Every structure is written in C-alpha cells, then in structure tokens.
C-alpha cells in the first residue's frame, strides 16, 4: 500500500528521484499521501455503492435476467433498449417523469424562495414560524403520503370538504386522471419546499445590509428590491438547488407509489415506478435495469445542461 502510494505520488509529482530525496520533496510526498488517505473513504464509498452497482446495472440491462434467478439471465444485446424505445409505456413514463420533475422543481423553488424572503424579515415568533415551516421536511415521507391519502379521499377527505364549501367537487384527487399528477406534485412540493426555504434563508444572510439600505434611500419598493438585489444574490444558489431538486425528483419513489402506484391511467407512472413494476411485479430485472440506464442518461443530460448554464452565467458575470 505504502509502496503503491509512493509510486503514485512520484508519477503525479513528475519529479526526479534524487530531487524527491530532499526534505521538501519528502514533505510534499507525505502531503500527497495524506490527501489520498483522506479521499480514500469517499472513493471507497463511490466504488462500492455507485460504480459497482452502476456497472452491474449496465450488465443486467443487456440480459433477460428474472428477479428470482439473478444469476441465470442470458445476454440479449440491445433487445431491452429496442423494446423500450418502441414502447408507448416507456415514453409515457418519460413524459410523466419530466412533467413531475419540472412541476416539483419550479413550484418548490418559487414557494421556498418566497417563504425564505418573508421569514427573513424580523417579526415576533419568527423562530417558531421557521420551526413550523420546517415540519413537512422533517416528517417521514411514508407518514406524509398516508396522511395525504386521507386528505385526498373522495368521500371524506379534507380537500373535497374544503372545495365543497365553494360548491365544487367532489373530485377524485388520486383516482381521476385529470387530477392525479396535480395531487402527487402538490404533496411532494409540500414535503420538499422547506429544504429550498432553508437553503435560501442561508443564502439571504450573505446579502449585505448596506444594499437594502441603499435601495431604501433610493426609494425602491419591495418588489424592486427583490428583483434588483435579492434575486441576483440568490441566483447561484437557486441554480444549485434546482439541479439537486431535479435529480432528486427524477428518482423519487415512495410518495408517488404510495399515493397512486403510478396511476390513474399511468398519469404518474414515472421512470422509477416503471422500474419497480418491471422488476418486482413483472420479474423482468433486465428490462428494469435498461429503464434505469435510460434514467441515468436523463439525469446526466440534466447535469450537463446545468454545468453549461452555470458556465455561461459565470462568463456573463465576469464580463459584467
């Protein structure tokens, strides 16, 4: 191990052997060794829990492996991918994933940011209000989903009781294809917006008070102050939060599965729900792995898109 580390250090430093014998080179080598040692746990984690499963997933996606016989699958080439790309069910899943992800990201960022701006101002019981607003994020997802099943119940749920006061409904929030996606997005946004709020609240602390004061002196109203001062300061944070929320939304399972199971009429049948159905209900582990790989492609596309946008934004800021 030590020899390996030394060899790596030598190859990276590119310094001649006799020079490395000097005390300075020795110190550098020790620093490098320490560096490798420090990143080793993270690398080990990545290899064991990310790279090996990813590699195994890629392998599986080219086989017809069944769930109860994971070692007995045969190589089928691109058959699984060919089937999926020609399947209406898969494209419906892809569409549902994009709609769900887009809606959750947009609404949770808007709600989280506005809430953060509001509770950033000093007022009585601010600490208590912040704690209450964090409550949904602290609630276990399964418990939240079960509560929402009750809230959405057509015959006795709070949602229908509420709209009933206005003479509307009853609506099948989880059973009617027109409302299925809305209901799932609403429950998810309720659950995740406090995270956005928390991050935005931290970012708001970095806005210098002098800027607010200058805006006040210039006679700027609340909206102008938000657009001219707060938002530009929040934008880098919003971009990062948007990326995280997107990736998390693409792979979110529990709340969707518990609320609708992918229905009604496949309206909320996102990629991860489809993976679950293929792997566990239909036993097609190979097919499920292929959907997973296409999901990885979607996530990668989003991530690459983010970095492109981020780089352009940075370049524009530098020019300004």
């Amino acid at each position, binding site marked *: 191990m030590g020899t390996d580390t030394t060899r790596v250090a030598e190859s990276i430093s590119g310094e001649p052997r006799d020079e490395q014998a000097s005390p300075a080179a020795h110190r550098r080598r020790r620093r490098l060794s320490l560096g490798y040692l420090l990143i080793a746990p993270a690398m080990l984690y990545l290899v064991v829990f990310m790279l090996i499963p990813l590699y195994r997933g890629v392998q599986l996606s080219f086989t017809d492996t*069944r*769930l*109860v*016989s*994971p070692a*007995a699958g045969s190589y089928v080439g691109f058959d699984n991918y060919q089937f999926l790309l020609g399947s209406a069910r898969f494209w419906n899943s892809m569409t549902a994933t994009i709609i769900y992800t887009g809606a959750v990201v947009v609404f949770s960022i808007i709600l989280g940011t506005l809430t953060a701006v509001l509770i950033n101002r000093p007022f009585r019981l601010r600490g208590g209000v912040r704690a209450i607003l964090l409550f949904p994020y602290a609630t276990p997802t399964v418990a939240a989903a079960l509560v929402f*099943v009750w809230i*959405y*119940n*057509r*015959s*006795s*749920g709070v949602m229908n009781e509420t709209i009933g006061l206005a003479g509307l409904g009853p609506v*099948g*929030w*989880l*059973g*009617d*294809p027109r409302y299925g996606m809305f209901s799932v997005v609403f429950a998810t946004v309720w659950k995740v917006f406090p995270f956005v709020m928390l991050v935005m609240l931290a970012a708001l602390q970095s806005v210098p008070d002098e800027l607010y004061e200058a805006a006040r002196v210039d006679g700027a109203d609340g909206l102008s102050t938000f657009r001219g001062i707060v938002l530009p300061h929040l934008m880098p944070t919003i971009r990062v939060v948007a990326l995280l929320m997107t990736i998390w939304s693409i792979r979110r399972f529990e709340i969707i*599965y*518990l*609320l*609708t*199971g*992918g*229905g*009604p*009429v*496949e309206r909320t049948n996102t990629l991860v729900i489809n993976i679950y*159905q293929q792997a*566990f*209900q*239909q*036993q097609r582990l190979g097919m499920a792995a292929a959907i997973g790989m296409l999901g990885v492609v979607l996530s990668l596309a989003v991530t690459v898109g983010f970095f492109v946008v981020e780089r352009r934004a940075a370049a524009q800021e530098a020019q300004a």
Partner: protein
Amino acid sequence: MISSRRYRAGRMVTAVLAATALLVAACAEEAPPVADPVEEAPEVEPDPDELPSGSITFGNWQWLEEGRGDALWAAVSAYEDHNPDATLEQDATPFGDYADTLYTEMGAGLGPDVFISLDNQWVVLHDAGLLEPLDDVIAGAPLNVTNDAMNIDGQQYGVTWEQVSYALLGNEHVMEEAGVEALPTTVDELIEAGQQIQDNTDADGFAVRHRIAEFAGWSADFQNWAYGFGGSWSDGEQLTIDSDENVEAVTEFKRVYDSGIMPIGDDAATFRSKFQENSLGLMIDNSGAALSFATAGAAITGQDMVSAPLPFPDHGAHQKLIISVNANSENIDLAKDFIRWFVTEEGQTLIRPPLGASTLATEVPLPDEFLEEHPWAETYVEIGPYSKSLLIAGFEMDTMDYYLTIMEAVERVITEDQDPREALEQAQQALE
C-alpha cells in the same frame, strides 16, 4: 424480512391470486374438492430421538394480522411439542412487501426455511427451481384435490395452507339501521341496497378495491366479477380478454362504481376498518379477511356479520396460499419434518380454527362451536368448491404481467369512461 418471535400488529390479509392450471382443470368443473386419501397410513408415534433438531424460520405475512396472527402462530408452534428439539421462528413481513421480499431473498439463495406464498408467486418460485420436493413427507397424508396444483411432473412441491374464496359480506348493524333486510343477489339489488344504506345511515353502502395503487389486491378481487359473469381471460390456449362475458363484467363493475354507493378512493385497509366500525354496510371479501374482522376485537363480532354468495350469475374466484420448503434452506430435514407434521390430523385440526372458513390441505370439518360463533362462515364453506383459480390458464407464469394490462384497461373504463369493449380489445391486442 423482519424476524422476531412474537408479533402483534395489524395488517390484514389483502389478497392476490390463486391456483395453477392443473387446479383449473380440477376445480373448474364445479366438483367439490372431495377428500382423496392416497392411502390410509397408520398413525405411528415418532421416536423423538430420530427427529431432526435445530431451528427453522417460517415466513408468512399473516403473523402480523391483528387477532388471527397469534392464533395461527400458537397452532403451528404445537410442532415444538411434537419435536422438542425443534424451534420455530417467525419471519414476518407485511403483505404489501411480502412478495418483493420473498423474491429478492430467495433469488439470492436466502429466505425463510418454510414459507407461505400465493399461487401466482409459487409458480414463479417453482419455475426458478427454488422449491424442495415434498413427496417423501406427504406420502400417506389424505391430501384433497386443492393440492394437485402443486404436483408438477409427478412431484409435490407444496401443500395447501388455505384456499380462500370470496363472498358478499354484510354488517348487520348497518343493514338493520338502513332497513336492508336481506343481502342482495344481483347487481341491481346491490346498488339499491347500497343506496338505501347511504340514504338512511352515515355509513357507506358498498366497498371493493378499485385503484391501481392496490394492483395486487384489486387484480385478485376483480376476477370475481369476470368469473361471476361467466368470463375468463383465456381458453387455455388463446387469450379471451375481449370476450362478451368479460365486457359485461367490466360494464357492471363500472355501473356499481358510478352508482355513488362506493367510497371512491378508500383503500382496502380503510374500507375494511369502516366495516369493522359499523361505517360500511356491504363488501366483497375473502374468507381469511372475514375471519380477521370477526376476531380483531373491533365493534363487530362474527355474530354481527352476514354473508351470501356473490351477487353475480356465476361463482367467483379463490386464491390459494401454499406452504413450501425453501430449496436453499440450511435445515431442510427439519423444514420437511414440519410439513410432515402439518399434514397430519393433529396439525390440520390445530390450524383449522384460526384459518376459519377456508379450505385446507385435508378435509377437516369446521367445529360446530366455530360455526355458531361465526355463522357467516357457512357461505364460504358452501361456495369454496365452486370457485376458480386466479391464474390465467395456459399463461400461468405471465399472470401478473397480463393482469397489469387488464387492470389498466378496467381503470381507463372507470376513470376515463372508455368503452369497456374498446378497452378490453386494446388490452387483448397489447398482449397478443
């Protein structure tokens, strides 16, 4: 899976499928499952020194059922008296996660030594070669025809734990308050009775699963409608999804769904709780669930429940729960010896009360005291022999795969008002 010695929790048997193609051939002929003693083996008291020893795990979601779970465990634990060197350990997983857990564990060469599975799960596990043959331990046991389905190519890979059938259940308190004097016998009467209940009480009229979020349970429950109107999904060789009978079944289901008597959105756990708390008048459910209602210590007892055959022209479905031995068990001898004991008169008699009105592996009559305490059980005993397997004949391994497409078609009919024939034709085309 969660392993523990004692579990008290409250999950009900919700349901999924039943028997294999061989059973269809055996049972679809409206022939009662007559006891079929292979040979009358003399009862020999085993020598305890020759019995295998150690401990085995027993996987079943029913351990978690309020009321019934403890009674079931007490019954099977009597094996420890028969074999003092053996220890049984519970391996309990809620029904909703049971199949996933079982498949994953057994696929990895692990899992409980002895376990219960539904017949649609059983065919998958058998096909994967994960079940131990049991011929040597069941020889001489008077097994009835319900076990024939688990005899593949002359080898027995499992034994019936229970076969549950479906009937119409009524809550007598609610029916009395609403002025409903008798259980309905047709869909028209069902809608009328349901409306009467809703008009005259605070209770819901009628409930049955109806959401794809409960796919496994709904797909099993819905077969009662298909079979009840004379339908089936195949003729043994070809799919018959868009047959006239199936179209009629979907149309009638939609009529009930739209009638306003159902608490739309309620899952099985919710409407079953409502039934037990006098907030639901009528429901279609299986014999296992019915016994749970009667013994859960809720607002009703067995005396407060009435039952009748399904309000359809024909008989409905049954689902079979099968007990098998894991081929990867580290203590196969003990696991098989447990099965040997289970099919003896002692084992079957002990398991009869907690399994209630279900059909067992051998013909064990329900005790008179049980029938007095649970008068609703009579109907299940009567209809049991005429019920049909949930597996799609000729397509057993693909049953759940096909049910997903079929139930999505039914879902389109009830939620998007798609024409039933068109929806079933699309399902047929998609699967052909």
